[in-house]
């Protein structure tokens, strides 16, 4: 019984505890990032 409780406690620590970190980070479900570029114009790297 004690082992089961111990296992559940560890599981709770691993699964439940990290969740609030995401909330604390401040990102809401309506927040996102757009990374963008344009007019690369066939340039892979400057010449010299």
């Amino acid at each position, binding site marked *: 019984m004690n082992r089961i409780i111990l296992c559940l406690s560890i599981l709770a620590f691993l699964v439940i505890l990290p969740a609030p970190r995401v909330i604390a980070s401040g990102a809401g479900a309506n*927040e*996102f*990032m757009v990374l963008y*570029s*344009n007019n690369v114009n066939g340039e*892979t790297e*400057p010449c*010299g």
Partner: protein
Amino acid sequence: MGGLSKKAYQFTKLIKSSNRPSLILDGGSLLFKSNSVQNKLANQSEITAKGIIKAYNLIGYDAVGVSRRDLAAGLDFLLKIKEKSKFTWLSANIINKSNGHSLFKPTISRNIGDIKVGVVGLTNQLPANSKLLDKDTEIKPWRDALPAIINELTRDHDFIILLTSLSAGECRKIAEVYPGINLIIHAKDSDVGQLPINLTETTTMVGTGKKGKYIGMMDIKWYPGSTWQAANHELLTTKRRERDRLNRQLALLKDRPGRNNYQKVQSRLITIENTIEKMELAREPSAKNAALKSSYKNRFIAMGKSMPDHAAVLEVVKETKRLINRLNSKPTITAQNSTLTNKGFTGWQTCRKCHSDQANNWQKSRHASSFQTLIKKNQQFNSDCLPCHVTRFDKRDPATAIGMPSDLQMVGCENCHGPGASHSANPISHKTTPVTAKTCLNCHIPDHDESFNFVRDLKKLNCIL
């Protein structure tokens, strides 16, 4: 100063360090330098284009807008490239005339957190006489191509992004007609980036400068059905100013009944008042989140020389250069440019016979070793680089710079003073060309040399004794 491997590194770093989900998009004009590819340079351009696609696949782009410039090697080439791309090429208006189908995907959808984002692409028109498309294909005007697509997207998407290379003026009109488009990533051919500009309450437009020297990052907080939190609402303000101007003009014309353009101005005034009314109506709260204001923070990141590289993308870039060098080092290509007397150039050794002090000073300068710089980078056959690293410079025909004779494989006397064969034969009657800042600006443009200063840099060369 650009570089796909630096761009890739920055994107990876930004995604890792942010806790927000992201989209990676490109507005277009990705593959080629100009709107048509010279026959002589077709193979080199195609190798470069394939390298760029490999790099973009590694970076993990979601979508790229098809611009007219991406069609520079022809539609068939771009369709082949599309098959090799892990991202989606977007164009809603390149259409097969016979069946009305799009040749590229018009849109993609992504669920980002609670927001459903739709991305649509629009291609700018080719000139009427262009042969880059076959006769069964056309680029439809946006007014014909967009209505159905935007109606469909606005039904079940919260946020719509347009990738386009249309002119800024046309983007403004699109924003006016379709308030459902929230962000326009604009591939304009400009040195400087387009800071976000709120075209309407619901549409903002942004774009980076040309040649991949910058990347853009926009952090967005969006409440579906809301408007952008913004001080300026450029388009409406412009229309209101125009209305006021026309009103004043009309008042003046009233006092001069003989003038016949009164009705013309009155009719323009009525049109503009109708537009303003429509735009103001669009600002009225109509959705549950209308009272809320959405916001964004935009940042451009310049790709500096000292920035780290993304290892895998750097390898792709190096391999692309190796392939270009191998291609252009073939004797069939190099042989045609190896005549020393080509176009009146004679080489610096001839100049030294009379101007030894100047030649000795020049030999200490970086101009003298400009070709060695390319050899070190394994780019000595790359026609993109060569014109500014050899003596004979021809902007219109860069392929002629491949395989120059060794006396012209440097930025020599004749780069600045003009072809010297006639002058060396008869110095009295044939004077050399005076050097001006314009001469240097053939190569020392901000793209290559941001700190160029004619007076200071000329002194460094120390040619004048």
